[in-house]
């Protein structure tokens, strides 16, 4: 007999979500839904009529972990719509900003993932807050990597959280030779640290994969199943590092392959919770008898690529461009760690190529004739696509397809076959950013009914 169990809210990720699952007698998930409960803020609708300069600054505020992604995707979507080519040095500054943010974001995610993992070879969960070694040095290394990422972001972006320097047409300012040297020094300081850190993190995730039993931090040890977190969905990525836009000759994302279905068509219908574990850390699961209705409660649309959910993120990038083939939740975690070095060398190459006397703003910034433009930014969590139509400098239409939105249905599939007690480990492997994912219109907020028709 299948039972219904629900973890709500989920923790150690950005935003507000829950896992509603049907499980068999041994507690293995047969059908799972992972859904956003984050209140919708409606960025896309309120951007209409605003200037093309303001809209990306608003969409930056979708998320404070990856504001770089939304600023750059937003700005570049505007540039794609109006047909504006930015100067090379502006592009290099954006690349540095992009890499800096990815380092900082991945390092932050390490803190969120580590409590589920064990000090390799022991049965002790890693507590990143402990003053004891060996964890203390790991935590300090993580903070150092974040500091480097945020400081570089501050210098090139003007601000690491909600960067002020990017603007439609390029950047407001180039950096000084002193700032160029400073970035170079910071990156070189971070490279050996990042290498050690990557090795450490990969050994931790491999250790977890090799265990027969595991628990989430503070939880009960349960038997793991084979193919933990596997799914059969495809991948989507536009680049290893930066992105692609409709201005590119060789475009790496295809709007015609994208369709969107409503949560109504995709998530489970009305259910009643029939399995409860008051000991699930911390505070237990949803009480037996609670009525749940994922199809009505989900706050995101379900974007599909070629008619099916896909995975986006570090593994998708490595799978598509580097033949990476490790599957499962740990395969994704390991791929994320492998990106550290690319980011640091990406920053180094860009800062060395930068001409600090170079022009950073296009001579001509057209005002737009309503043409559809899109830009894909490879955010830390995957492909962040902004689509827009700009007419006379004003946004006519704006749509955001952010990485975690793409991953919601894929994670739901990847839950199948896992013991429900470990499903948060699968979800966390995707580094969810739920405020990013939730940005559409709601018809009735009190009942959390999502708008019937969202896209023209």
């Amino acid at each position, binding site marked *: 007999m299948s039972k219904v169990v629900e973890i709500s809210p989920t923790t150690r990720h950005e935003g507000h979500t829950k896992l509603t699952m049907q499980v068999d007698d041994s507690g293995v998930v047969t059908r799972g839904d992972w859904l956003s409960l984050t209140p919708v803020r409606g960025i896309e609708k309120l951007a209409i009529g605003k200037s093309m300069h303001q809209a990306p600054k608003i969409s930056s505020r979708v998320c404070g972990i990856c504001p770089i992604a939304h600023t750059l995707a937003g700005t570049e979507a505007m540039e794609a719509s109006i047909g504006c080519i930015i100067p090379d040095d502006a592009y290099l500054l954006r690349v540095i900003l992009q890499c800096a943010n990815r380092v900082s974001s991945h390092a932050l995610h390490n803190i969120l993932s580590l409590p589920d993992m064990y000090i390799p070879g022991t049965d002790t969960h890693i507590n990143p807050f402990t003053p004891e070694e060996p964890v203390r040095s790991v935590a300090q290394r993580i903070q150092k990597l974040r500091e480097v990422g945020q400081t570089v972001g501050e*210098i090139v972006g003007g601000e*690491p959280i909600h960067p002020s320097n990017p603007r439609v047409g390029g950047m407001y300012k180039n950096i000084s030779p002193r700032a160029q040297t400073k970035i170079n020094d910071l990156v070189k300081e971070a490279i050996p640290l990042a290498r050690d850190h990557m090795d450490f993190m990969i050994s931790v995730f491999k250790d977890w994969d090799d265990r027969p039993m595991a628990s989430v931090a503070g939880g009960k040890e349960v038997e793991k199943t084979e193919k933990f977190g596997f799914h059969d969905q495809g991948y989507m990525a536009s680049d290893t590092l930066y992105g692609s836009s409709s201005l590119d000759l060789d475009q790496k994302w295809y709007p015609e392959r994208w369709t969107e279905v409503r949560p109504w068509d995709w998530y489970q219908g009305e259910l009643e919770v029939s399995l409860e574990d008051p000991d699930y850390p911390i505070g237990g699961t949803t009480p037996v008898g609670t009525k749940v209705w994922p199809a009505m409660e989900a706050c995101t649309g379900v974007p599909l690529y070629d008619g099916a959910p896909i995975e986006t993120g570090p593994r998708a990038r490595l799978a598509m461009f580097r033949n990476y083939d490790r599957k499962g939740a740990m395969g994704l975690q390991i791929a994320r760690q492998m990106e550290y070095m690319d980011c640091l060398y990406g920053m180094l190459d860009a800062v060395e190529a930068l001409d600090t006397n170079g022009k950073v703003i296009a001579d001509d910034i057209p005002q737009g004739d309503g043409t559809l433009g899109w830009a894909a930014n490879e955010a830390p969590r995957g492909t962040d696509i902004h689509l827009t139509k700009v007419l006379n400098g004003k946004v006519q239409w704006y749509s955001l397809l952010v990485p975690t939105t793409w991953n919601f249905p894929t994670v739901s599939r990847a839950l199948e076959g896992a013991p429900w007690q470990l499903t948060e480990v699968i979800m966390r492997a995707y580094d969810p950013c739920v405020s990013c994912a939730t940005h559409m219109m709601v018809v009735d907020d009190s009942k959390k009914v999502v708008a019937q028709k969202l896209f023209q």
Partner: protein
Amino acid sequence: MVLGNYKNCVSARAADPAVLSASQDGGIVTQLFAFALEEGIIDGAVVAGPGDEPYKPEPIVATTVAELMEARGTRYTICPNVAMIKEATRSYGLDKVGIVGTPCQIQAVRKAQLYPMGMRSVGDKIALAIGIFCMENFPYQGLETMVEDLCNVKMESAVKMDIGKGKFSVYTSRGAVSQIPLKLTHKFEQPGCHVCLDYVANLADVSTGSVGSPDGWSTVLTRTKKGETIWGKAIEAGYFETKPIEDVKPGLGLLTKLATEKITKNQKTLDERATFGVDKGLRNPYI
């Protein structure tokens, strides 16, 4: 207390005649920043650099002595130096920022350090804040009217302007001096200055101005531990000539008198704001 907390007060001037050649008074600001730059105490300073129009300064981040030299002299008009402190730590990549400013600007710097609204990682990078004495300031159009209409001098011809001994004086490149009584300038004052209760930059590390010392010399107050240390090192390195303030005329007496007058007058303006309207008043930022 009208002079704020300070550790030491002297009359001083820069030892380098090149600095003095175009400084307003004793060249304290330029010489001290040059010393701090050479010693690595700061790696740049926000100063009032040349702007597009004569005597209309623009804040710049000076990272060389040459740039500091370009910014010498008093421009009696608003120059928003604080607008550059964040940028100095961003695209300029500075870690140790110097800044010069009027008392209100030094207040802004300190407030940004204690309550950093939108001033992420700026506070700990402020390495040396030099305050200049200030009785009042003028909007650019006001200054232009004073110079061109009342003093009959083209802005382009002015090489120095000075307020002292009850007069506003303009010196030209051809050696002429044109003066008007200060009372003619009052209506051009920036209204915001009328609620200002700080004459000698009480919150700076080092404050300096002309009042109290003879022409070509400056009155210098060292206030913070940092200010005292840097000043001490500069003296030791031979960057300044000094005299005890007690030995110069008019000395601290006049400074105290002017500071008291400013604060008393402006406190009265502030008090009047409370009953400005009928049954309602205007805002008071100090409460």
